[in-house]
């Protein structure tokens, strides 16, 4: 069975010849993608990464290192696989910033951080905080703080690579957890065992095209710069504060297993 309806001596055809026919160029790209797993569905999955970004606190269900990076197996230039598997998406999403621009690397946190002993004020007031009827949280995504409540729509200032609408992100950098009368502040972040905060990616929106015309006086030459930014839009779908007993039980279980 062949897509073009006739047998093609692919091995005997030279690469320049393959590339010269636009339809056949697809055969070069697809020969790499068939080597990898078939394309997966992307409705309503939960992705967890061990990246240093603010998306998850739990350990990865899919090991990023096992997924081959697209560029290593590509035989034609640097074309990435247009239909990456979920593992490949996670691997690609977790390594975005070139090494030279990075701050000193922080290792991802698959090993749980030991829980600091809870202070008296936390033990006494966390149940009161939980009991109040509405809560807000200040989540940090790529370092930027956003004060959100449950059900809010959050438009990030850029497009996050590696996510598609329907993905559920677990936010693990929270600096303030509050209600009407009580506020829990982390220094700088609250321990991840205190809460569960999830956001669903609901779309990738764009802004109207920005057109900047650059022209100097008494010079007829003009340069036009066009730019259209894309933004990932999230919906905060879950915001749960856990009890003191659950937090300590979690920490004890983690300490026992490590």
């Amino acid at each position, binding site marked *: 069975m062949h897509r073009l309806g006739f047998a093609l001596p692919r091995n005997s055809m030279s690469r320049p010849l393959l590339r010269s026919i636009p339809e056949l160029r697809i055969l070069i790209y697809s020969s790499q993608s068939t080597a990898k797993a078939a394309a997966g*569905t992307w*409705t309503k999955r939960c992705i967890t990464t061990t990246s240093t970004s603010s998306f998850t606190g739990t350990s990865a269900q899919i090991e990023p290192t096992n997924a081959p990076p697209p560029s290593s197996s590509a035989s034609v230039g640097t074309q990435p696989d247009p239909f990456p598997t979920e593992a490949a998406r996670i691997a690609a999403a977790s390594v975005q910033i070139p090494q030279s621009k990075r701050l000193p690397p922080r290792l991802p946190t698959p090993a749980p951080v030991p829980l600091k002993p809870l202070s008296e004020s936390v033990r006494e007031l966390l149940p009161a905080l939980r009991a109040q009827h509405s809560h807000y949280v200040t989540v940090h995504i790529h370092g930027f703080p956003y004060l*959100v*409540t*449950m*059900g809010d729509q959050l438009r990030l200032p850029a497009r996050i690579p590696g996510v598609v609408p*329907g993905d559920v992100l677990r936010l693990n950098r929270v600096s303030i957890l509050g209600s009407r009368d009580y506020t829990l502040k982390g220094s700088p972040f609250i321990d991840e065992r205190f809460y569960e905060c999830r956001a669903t990616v609901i779309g990738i*929106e764009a802004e109207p095209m920005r057109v900047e015309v650059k022209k100097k006086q008494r010079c007829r030459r003009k340069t036009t710069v066009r730019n259209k930014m894309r933004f990932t839009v999230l919906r905060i779908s879950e915001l749960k504060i856990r009890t003191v007993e659950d937090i300590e039980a979690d920490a004890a279980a983690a300490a026992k297993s490590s």
Partner: protein
Amino acid sequence: MPIKAIPKISKGQNGLGAFILQCRKLDFHYCDWAGSSVGMNGFIKSVLPKFAAQSPQVEITVSPRPKRHPHIIGHYVNGKQKAICVKNMEPLEILKKAEILRNASGEKNKRVLKAVTSRNPSVRGIWSPYHGKPLVV
């Protein structure tokens, strides 16, 4: 007098409970004669089946539109449409445009300066001069 319930209109918050992709249909129009549609023809033959398999929520139709440039038209849940002309594009470029249409909502592109859009009343309440810590002069 009989007690009446206060009417409350439910407000849609996509993603809060269930998530529904806003793009419900994508039309791919191609032409067998036009040179600008060569990339689109290649896309339909080789890339579109995989794209369609990855997007099971989206209805995908392929139809010829003779003597015209190739287009992708997205139909959205709010009843609006977005069209992108993909003349003279390579199959992978057309895939990018198809993904843009699939991931978008039907709303017109607009600049949004505030990151957070919320319908909930403020958690800490509106400031009042009679409550809280008094200002000591």
